[in-house]
């Protein structure tokens, strides 16, 4: 894994949603949907992101694609800091100042990470104002490049296609705008893309309601694919499909991955799907990553008590098999007012006193296996 290239690096990503109340719409509280999340996605791999509903996994995906603006944190794509791409210029400048200039002035260059170093060289070369104007000069192009790099496939095949426009327009709209394909070759390219996902090319003149759920999901995939992206975020992409169609679509996605060298971030609550498709699995609980490990390691030897409880809940298709299930008590606490210390401690069967006081950091226990727990592996 170490020789592989990091495609997306998420550092300390935070996304809070304000709760407003009263006449003046004052902010009375924050929903801490994603709270300090860091992970890497390597080129060509499939990362599964699991967690129960409300744990912030979809928010991570949406923020990654900048459908939500992150509250703080850094998103690095292809060794470029993309965090400021979608900010208004003044805000972007402030971000660059707070993130880089302050660090460059006060800290020792020897301690910088690879990315920081890259920007440090630029700063050394151009000076502070040159640094800003260089990075802020071509934001529209950078945005376009970002959209071309990352695409998304949505959960609901019925709501993800505009019911009033034809498939041809749905699929070609983005690529034409970003000049991935020329206007003159739309028909030919759309046809090829549709046939690649298993839809008859002549059906491009139809409307979405003329297709079944599985076909629509394929069209959604074709729409993302024609942008020629490197990363596709699949947000519960197969959750709404019935089982037979689900496996077809998953296999289609795996075929496309091989063919186009795609990277997937596969968001799902379905552990069996995750087990089938992923190379690496990230488990989230209440806005935090609790465990991040290669699939085999995670499924065979989960270290976090929450992951262990999840694993014990996977149904086994054998009526005689009696498995010891770990039943968690209580409900997921509210992300508005999360528990102190470890967020899992009120429900954790092996929680000790320290768990309610000190928040466990994500530690690398074995190479590539990260756990955020004070007593990893203590739940048997």
């Amino acid at each position, binding site marked *: 894994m170490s020789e592989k290239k990091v495609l997306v690096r998420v550092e300390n990503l935070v996304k809070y949603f304000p709760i407003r109340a009263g006449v003046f719409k004052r902010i009375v509280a924050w929903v801490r949907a994603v709270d300090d999340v860091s992970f890497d996605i390597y080129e060509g791999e499939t990362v599964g992101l699991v967690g129960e509903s409300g744990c912030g996994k979809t928010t991570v995906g949406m923020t990654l*694609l900048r*459908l939500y603006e992150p509250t703080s944190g850094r998103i690095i794509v292809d060794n470029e800091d993309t965090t400021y791409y979608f900010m208004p210029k003044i805000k972007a400048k402030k971000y660059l100042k707070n993130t880089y200039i302050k660090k460059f002035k006060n800290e020792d260059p020897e301690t910088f990470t690879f990315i920081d170093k890259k920007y440090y060289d630029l700063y050394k070369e151009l000076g502070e104002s040159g640094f800003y104007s260089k990075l802020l000069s071509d934001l529209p192009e950078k945005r376009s490049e970002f959209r071309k790099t990352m*695409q998304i496939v949505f*959960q*609901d095949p019925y*709501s993800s296609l*505009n019911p*009033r426009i034809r498939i041809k327009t749905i699929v070609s709209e983005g690529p034409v*705008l970003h000049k991935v394909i020329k206007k003159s070759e739309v028909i030919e390219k759309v046809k090829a893309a549709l046939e690649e996902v298993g839809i008859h090319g002549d059906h491009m003149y139809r409307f979405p309601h003329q297709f079944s759920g599985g076909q629509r999901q394929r069209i959604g995939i074709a*729409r993302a694919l024609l942008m020629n992206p490197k990363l596709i975020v699949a947000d519960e992409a197969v959750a709404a499909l019935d089982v037979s169609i689900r496996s077809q679509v998953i296999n289609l996605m795996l075929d496309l991955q091989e063919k186009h060298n795609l990277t997937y971030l596969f968001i799902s609550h379905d552990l069996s799907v995750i087990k089938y498709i992923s190379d690496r699995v990230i488990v989230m609980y209440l806005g935090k990553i609790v465990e991040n490990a290669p699939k085999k390691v995670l499924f065979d030897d989960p270290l976090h008590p929450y992951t262990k409880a999840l694993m014990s809940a996977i149904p086994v298709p054998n009526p005689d098999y009696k498995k010891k299930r770990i039943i968690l008590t209580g409900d997921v606490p509210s992300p508005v007012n999360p528990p102190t210390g470890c967020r899992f401690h009120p429900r954790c069967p092996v929680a000790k006193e320290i768990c309610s006081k000190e928040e466990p950091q994500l530690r690398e226990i074995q190479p590539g296996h990260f756990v955020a727990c004070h007593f990893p592996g203590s739940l048997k």
Partner: protein
Amino acid sequence: MNTELKRTLRKLFKNPSAILGFALLAFFILVAVFAPLIAPPINPLFPDENGNPMKLDDPYIMPILSWSSDPVPPSKDHPFGMIAGRDIFYGVVWGTRTAFKIGLIVVSASTLFGIIIGSIAGYFGGWIDEVLMRITDIFLSIPFLLAAMVLTTILGSGLDKVMIAMIIFGWMATARLIRANILQVKEEQFVLAAKALGIKNFIIIVRHILPNTIFPVLVQATMRLGSLVITAAALSFLGLGAPIGYADWGSMLNYTRNYILGSSGQALAYWYTVFYPGMAMVLFVLAWNLVGDALRDVFDPKLK
């Protein structure tokens, strides 16, 4: 698509009230289009140099055919009777054109304005929404007739001024409606998908959001088209609208003010002065309401 259109049309014409609505509307359109043939814009009292009746400079100004201002009952020459020396039939026929003019211009302008305000407020949200909606509230809080009177005092009276007043105070309902619909549609995944594709906000609104939200607005606009004519008539009745003698149903009712109660002992003596322009108005509003109902049935997916 074609089969769907056919099915929609078939459904539309199975509904008797829809048929009545469209028939009435077609009738009014025909009257408006062929007004110069049905009621020729000439004044028979003043022959030109060839001995033919004089052509009117402005066909919308009803010719004065008699110097007596008392109502004259319907006769062969004047099938709807006369009032203030003017032929009621002529006024009703040319008033149809006026009604369409007022309705179409005011509704299209105020709807367009409402759509723009409502889309911006709904799509961008935040403080933009807050500011625009509070402005809408302010406009909604002003009684319409009062506002129209003040405006016509400032601008001067006249049909065009009344239309301006109706546009300025007529966009709020549309803005509210489209905003509410957009709030609903903008969370749909196809809008998020368009954002993820980097489509520009303007195109997202025009191509992805409005086509999915516009139909309730069109239905509402259709229904409003009829009722606006009544509002305009009310203003004309108060003397704020069309100038004296203009072929407009409301200003014709203005003439009848002194005769509405009839003469002593005969309450219905001058029934024709109120009946014909009033009937035209009622049928016009009814036509648009029935058409609006029919369109709503067609566009509402829940009734499909």
